[in-house]
């Protein structure tokens, strides 16, 4: 902020901060943590999708070698121990009933992990198996067993005009969100043509490599947890409530973690580790296995009806989305996903009126929660598939239709809502132009090109964030902010922003680890809001440091640059003012976007996160096999603080989207038993799955709300991919697929059976 207008650190591609430790194998992760007297936990999980627990006997297990303690719901139960976002329905250990395969029923802490695992076999549980509810349809059936006969503790946000929500409107529906433009019916009535189509979205597994890991210990009156969680301050509130502690007696240290893609958000197994540690009065480490993690939290499967009204000349008039999300057994973040999916699920076109109804349906499957895209992946699949299908029915070119009807910069589909802040049409043209010219048509295997534009908003509206920047006596700086590094590159970008504002080279800035006792408060790394919100707080805190340096130098206009103030080294200035040891200069800031009470969610979207994709596929009609020959993806970071990090986010998400499109699907059978919830049987993309042509474009609009015009990009790579590939299949063959994944069986069926 100091002097030159031209940026020195922001916008320069740099290796990720922390990359050195990672290539050396020296980066500690939560699963590596140790402590004196450490015990290791193992969790007994339900083998049934739905059952009543008649009895649990732990005596034999408690006598096994090395076992320190065995815990059941008898050790921690009651309404205050339930957790979940907005609907608190999930027990730490199953209480009376199990509702999904893999639900924790009891847990053991023992001297070694092997002893803990071995002792699980000696816990005797008597179950009375109940009717499973494995699907949305089963849960909504008239004779479906009620999964939650009693109401949960809930907290409803206040909504503005047009929006409403209801918690637990019926026992098997967790949440219902509705949005309706008052003019919707009138606009719909004026339509020349309407289309209604139904789409299915298959749930994926996060498949992050480091399974859940945490280490809990009690000392005196307080609880301390080292964990992989990306929401340390929200977790602190849950732990404080569950263990009846004031927040200052709960410390959450959040460590750099082996990825999460949403799976490590909100309260997870930390209360269970804390319970074991309290009972044993020793530190306890709980590390899930990969299999356990696949049964702990998943993406939301969905059934989506899209109703679209067009004018006589094919222009968009109104769109209604009826979305049923498979929430699994417990709330987790489903209520939030529902609101978000519904509110911004219509696609980035010039709708005159929109409406939606989103229901989160409870099933006896693993709880669904945050997953990269947060409802936007599901709605982008359905909405963008329908655009191509209706264009084909109207003999319109889907690319030309989109370019004619996309929102322009500044336009919104809801009056007063934030206008579009990306050049949507330009982005679409860019991904299409980046495709190689299609090869000559293949006689036996038709080829086609498809495009799609996914959309979600970047989170962070009305979200408060604090940050501090400490300039040390030698003139180097430490950034303190509550954003956890989960591989998204937050540490690097925050360091770059602070370095730029302080006029320091990047290697003189570090970012502190997150610890709720020490770090400024932040609601966590969510919805790609780190660049839009937390980075703004960091920039302002750095500006505060610069202002203090100028005051110390006695000149309001002093040039602060390259570790000097008006030419004097910072270290020298600090010694001159504070004595031979100098002193830290601490800058602070709090930011929070203002509310807009007249809007349905009472705040403007902070920014929009479009996801452009173009794909060329080749389909083998004999087998239904789809080969993606080319894939081009694009995202808009506003301003790329670190373009290497932006490419990494978009490209990595795109390959996740490729898996979602072609093969990822966490399946259960009619009894609710998982069919492929193991790393063996679940197919995730490998290096050999990359399309032969795979390109990533970073399109900088400069229109982000964050410092230097930055905005988030972390979820923009995957949203459009499934629809772009299915649209390419339709272009190649005419087969209009409506379900994911686009397996050979599904494509073959669409080509030869359904038609």
């Amino acid at each position, binding site marked *: 902020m100091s002097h030159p207008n031209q940026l020195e650190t922001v916008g320069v591609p740099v*290796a*990720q901060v*922390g*990359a*050195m*430790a*990672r*290539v*050396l*194998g*020296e*980066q*500690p*992760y939560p*699963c*590596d943590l140790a402590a004196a007297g450490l015990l290791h936990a193992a969790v007994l999980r339900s083998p049934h999708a739905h059952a009543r627990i008649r009895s649990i006997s732990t005596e034999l297990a408690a006598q096994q070698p090395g076992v320190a303690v065995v815990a059941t719901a008898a050790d921690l139960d009651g309404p205050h121990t339930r957790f979940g976002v907005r609907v608190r329905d999930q027990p730490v250990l199953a209480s009376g009933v199990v509702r999904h395969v893999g639900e924790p029923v009891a847990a053991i802490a023992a001297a070694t992990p092997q002893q803990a695992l071995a002792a699980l076999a000696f816990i005797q549980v008597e179950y009375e198996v109940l009717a499973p509810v494995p699907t949305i349809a089963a849960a909504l059936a008239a004779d479906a067993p009620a999964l939650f006969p009693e109401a949960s503790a809930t907290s409803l946000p206040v909504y503005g005009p047009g929006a409403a929500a209801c918690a637990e409107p019926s026992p098997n529906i967790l949440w219902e969100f509705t949005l309706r433009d008052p003019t919707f019916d009138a606009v719909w009535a004026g339509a020349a043509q309407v289309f209604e189509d139904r789409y299915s979205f298959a749930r994926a597994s*996060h*498949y*992050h*490599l*480091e*399974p859940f890991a945490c280490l809990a210990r009690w000392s005196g009156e307080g609880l301390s947890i080292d964990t992989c969680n990306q929401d340390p301050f929200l977790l602190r509130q849950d732990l404080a409530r569950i263990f009846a502690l004031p927040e200052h007696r709960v410390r959450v240290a959040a460590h*750099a*973690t*082996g*990825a999460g*893609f949403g799976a490590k958000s909100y309260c997870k197994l930390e209360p269970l580790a804390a319970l074991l540690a309290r009972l044993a009065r020793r530190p306890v480490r709980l590390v899930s*296995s*990969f299999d356990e993690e696949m049964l702990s939290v998943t993406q939301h499967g969905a059934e989506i009806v899209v109703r679209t009204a067009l004018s006589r000349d094919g222009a968009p008039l109104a769109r209604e989305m009826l979305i049923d999300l498979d929430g699994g057994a417990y709330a987790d973040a489903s209520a939030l996903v529902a609101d978000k999916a519904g509110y911004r699920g219509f696609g980035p076109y010039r709708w005159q009126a929109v409406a939606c109804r989103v229901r989160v349906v409870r099933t006896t499957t693993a709880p669904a929660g945050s997953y990269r895209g947060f409802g936007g992946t599901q709605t982008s699949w359905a909405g963008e598939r329908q655009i191509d299908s209706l264009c084909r029915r109207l003999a319109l070119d889907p690319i030309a239709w989109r370019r004619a009807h996309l929102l322009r910069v500044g336009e919104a589909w809801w009056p007063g809502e934030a206008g579009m802040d990306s050049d949507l049409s330009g982005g679409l043209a860019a991904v299409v132009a980046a495709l190689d010219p299609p090869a000559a048509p293949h006689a036996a295997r038709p080829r086609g090109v498809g495009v799609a534009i996914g959309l979600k908003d970047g989170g962070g509206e009305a979200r408060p964030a604090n940050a501090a920047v400490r300039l040390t006596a030698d003139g180097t700086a430490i950034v303190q902010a509550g954003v956890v590094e*989960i*591989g*998204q*590159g937050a540490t690097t970008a925050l360091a770059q922003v602070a370095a730029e504002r302080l006029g320091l080279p990047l290697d003189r800035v570090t970012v502190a680890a997150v610890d709720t006792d020490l770090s400024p408060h932040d609601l966590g790394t969510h919805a790609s809001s780190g660049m839009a919100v937390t980075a703004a707080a960091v920039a302002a805190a750095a500006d505060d440091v610069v202002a203090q340096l100028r005051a110390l130098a006695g000149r309001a206009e002093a040039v602060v640059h390259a570790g000097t103030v008006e030419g004097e080294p910072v270290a020298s200035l600090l010694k001159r003012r504070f004595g031979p040891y100098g002193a830290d200069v601490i800058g602070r800031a709090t930011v929070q976007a203002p509310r807009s009470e007249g809007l349905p969610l009472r705040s403007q979207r902070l920014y929009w996160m479009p996801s452009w994709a173009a794909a060329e596929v080749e389909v083998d009609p004999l087998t239904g096999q789809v080969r993606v020959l080319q894939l081009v993806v694009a995202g808009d970071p506003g301003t790329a603080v670190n373009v*290497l*990090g932006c*490419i*990494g986010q978009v*490209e*990595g*998400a*795109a*390959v*996740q989207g490729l898996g979602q499109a072609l093969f990822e699907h966490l399946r259960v059978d009619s009894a609710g038993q998982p069919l492929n919830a*193991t*790393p*063996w049987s679940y197919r*995730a*993309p*490998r*290096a*050999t799955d*990359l399309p032969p042509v*795979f390109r*990533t474009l970073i399109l900088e609009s400069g229109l982000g709300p964050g410092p230097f015009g930055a905005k988030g990009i972390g979820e923009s790579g995957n949203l459009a991919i499934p629809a772009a590939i299915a649209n390419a299949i339709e272009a190649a063959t005419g087969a209009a697929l409506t379900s994911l994944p686009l397996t050979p069986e599904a494509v073959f069926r669409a080509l030869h059976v359904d038609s």
Partner: protein
Amino acid sequence: MTQLVLNGRAVTAPADPQLLLGLWLRDSQGLTGLKLACDQGVCGACTVLVNDQPMGACHLFVWQVEGQRVETIESLGSPTRLHPLQQAFHDHGALQCGFCTPGMILAALALLRVNPHPTREEVQAALSGNLCRCTGYRPIIDAVLAAAEAMAESPP
């Protein structure tokens, strides 16, 4: 007792028939660069080199490496002198969370020892046993190709 050569040094491991190599390296030898992720031989995060072959330490017993050379990520470079593969991963954005990185680098090293000038497709095939959920693989493949060039110019 099991005798082996671990990162260039002769060491002795207990004769426990159930002792897994990955756990022993992490818990007894302090070599935590090796990561246990899927723990079932699918993801490659636990890759070590056994007589130059990339193998999953999560599902090898210690007695299976009797008399063999075992290398982990800790044997490669140091902060002041990164191995060319480590340097290339660092410079090419070939990691995000970094959990797969040690195993990925060792799998790439095994390839470059037998095939110093691989094609892009050969790199993809050699890394197909190592999963990365963050990067989408492209920068990893680029890093391995860049390291191959660097190693051809000045062998590590």
